[in-house]
C-alpha cells in the first residue's frame, strides 16, 4: 500500500455504501450520547490516506455519523482505556472487535477499568486488513466475548487452533545457536522507540520497568544487549496476558516479528496450563495462581 496515496478525509465513506451494521452502530451511538449515558465514544473514523482509519473520540450525537466499521479497522482502540485522559472521563463507549474485547476482559480482570464505566459496542468481525491478517484466520473471538450491544450476525467462535503456530513450530525446530542468531539479528534492528509498548492494550503500567533507573534493570541504549533485554522483558511481562492482537507487531517500525514471541508464550500458557487470555474476566492467568501439589520436571 502506498502511504502517500492520499485521499481527502471522508471520501471513502461517501463512496462506499454505508452498511446496515454501521447504520445501526451510528444510531445507537447517537442515542447513547444524546441521553448522556456515555460521555464519549471511541470509534473508528475515516483516515487521511486510502485504506487507513483514524481513532475518533466523539462527544456530540451529530458526530456519530463519522463512525465506520470495516476491514480497515485494524488497530485496537482498547489501548486508549489505559490512558489517564480517558480514565478521567467516567463512562465512555468504545467500538471493539473480538480481539479488542478480549483485551478489555484482561483489563477488567486486572482492575484496570471498571465495567460500569464502559459501554462496549461489540462488532462481529470476520477479519481485518488487506490482505486479511494471519491472526484473523485463527481468531477465537469473531463474536466479541464481552459487549453491551452487538452489531452484526453473531458467528460461533472457533476454539483453539494449532494452525496458528506453524511459524512458531518452525523456529522451535531450530537449534539454540540458530535461534540465538535469528533473534539477535532481529533485535539488533530495534531502535527502542517503545511503539510496541504504547500500542499494546495490555501494557498498562504507568511507569514501565524500562523507564526506571533505580535500579536500571533494562539497559536503555539501543545496543544488542539492551535490545535483547527489552524484547525479552516486554514479552514476558505479557505472558498469560497477551491476547495475540498483533498491535505491537504491527506498530514496530523495524519489522521485528514480535508476534512470534507472543504466540510462543500464548502456546506455552495453553499447552501447560490450558489458559487463553481474555476469554472471560474471571479466570486467573497461570502465573497469578497455582495448584497444590503440582510439580515440573526441570526442577530436580
Amino acid at each position, binding site marked *: 500500500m502506498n502511504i502517500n496515496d492520499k485521499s481527502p478525509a471522508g471520501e471513502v465513506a461517501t463512496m462506499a455504501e454505508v452498511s446496515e451494521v454501521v447504520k445501526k452502530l451510528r444510531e445507537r451511538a447517537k442515542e447513547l450520547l444524546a441521553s448522556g449515558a456515555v460521555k464519549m465514544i471511541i470509534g473508528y473514523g475515516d483516515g487521511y490516506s486510502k485504506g487507513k482509519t483514524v481513532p475518533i473520540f466523539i462527544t456530540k450525537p451529530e458526530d456519530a455519523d463519522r463512525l465506520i466499521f470495516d476491514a480497515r479497522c485494524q488497530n485496537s482502540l482498547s489501548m486508549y482505556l489505559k490512558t489517564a485522559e480517558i480514565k478521567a472521563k467516567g463512562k465512555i463507549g468504545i467500538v471493539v472487535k473480538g480481539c479488542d474485547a478480549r483485551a478489555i476482559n484482561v483489563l477488567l480482570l486486572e482492575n484496570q477499568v471498571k465495567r460500569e464505566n464502559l459501554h462496549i459496542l461489540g462488532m462481529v468481525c470476520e477479519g481485518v486488513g488487506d490482505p486479511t491478517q494471519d491472526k484473523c484466520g485463527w481468531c477465537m473471538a469473531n463474536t466479541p466475548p464481552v459487549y453491551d450491544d452487538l452489531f452484526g450476525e453473531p458467528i460461533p467462535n472457533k476454539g483453539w487452533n494449532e494452525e496458528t503456530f506453524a511459524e*512458531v513450530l518452525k*523456529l*522451535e525446530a531450530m537449534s*539454540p*545457536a*540458530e*535461534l*540465538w*542468531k*535469528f*533473534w*539477535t539479528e532481529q533485535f539488533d534492528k530495534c531502535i527502542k522507540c517503545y511503539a510496541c509498548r504504547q500500542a499494546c492494550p495490555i501494557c498498562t503500567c504507568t511507569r514501565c*520497568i524500562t523507564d526506571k533507573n533505580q535500579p536500571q*534493570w*533494562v*539497559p536503555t*541504549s539501543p*545496543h*544488542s*544487549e539492551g535490545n*535483547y*533485554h527489552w*524484547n*525479552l*522483558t516486554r*514479552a*514476558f511481562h505479557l*505472558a*498469560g496476558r497477551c491476547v495475540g492482537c498483533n498491535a505491537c507487531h504491527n506498530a514496530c517500525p523495524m519489522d521485528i516479528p514480535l508476534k512470534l*514471541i507472543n504466540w*510462543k*508464550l500464548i502456546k*506455552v*500458557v495453553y499447552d*501447560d*496450563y490450558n489458559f487463553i487470555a481474555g476469554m472471560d474476566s474471571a479466570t486467573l492467568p*497461570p*502465573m497469578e495462581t*497455582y*495448584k*497444590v*501439589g*503440582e*510439580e*515440573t520436571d*526441570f*526442577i*530436580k
Partner: protein
Amino acid sequence: MAEFHPKTFAFFCNWCTYTGADLAGTSRMLYPADFRVIKVPCTGRIDFEFIVKAFEQGADGVWISGCHIGDCHYNSGNYYAQRRWAIFRQELGFLGIDLRRLKFSWISAAEGRKFAVEAKEFVERITELGPYTEFHSIIPKTREAEAVTGGGN
C-alpha cells in the same frame, strides 16, 4: 593459560537451600566453590530480571534453588516461582539461550549431601560448557572486560 573457572551466580532461598549449603559446609563436605551465592528470602522473590542481569554481568551459568514444593516458608512462594520458571525457561529457549546454563533445584535445609552433589554437578557442567561467549558477544564493549573477567571467583 590458567585453568578455566566459570563465573556463575546462585540464587538461594534463605530458608532451605542456603541453610542446606551451611549444613554441607559445617559437615565438611567438599564441593567446588565456583559460584557466587546471592541469598533471597524466597524463590518467589527472584524476578526473572535477576537471571538476565546475571548473564549481562558475564555469567556462564545461573543456579536457582529453594525449598521443596510444599515446604515453602511462606507457603506458596515456590509454587508461584515454579510456574514463572516453567514459562520463562521456555521463552529463553525460544530466544536462543542455552538452557544447559540454567539450573533449578529444590534443596532442603536437611539436604547437605544433596547440596554438595548438585553444586558439583552444576560447576562441572558449566566448566565443561566453557565461557558463554554467545551471550558475552552482546555485552557492550565498554563493559565487556569487566563483566567477563571481573572479579574472578
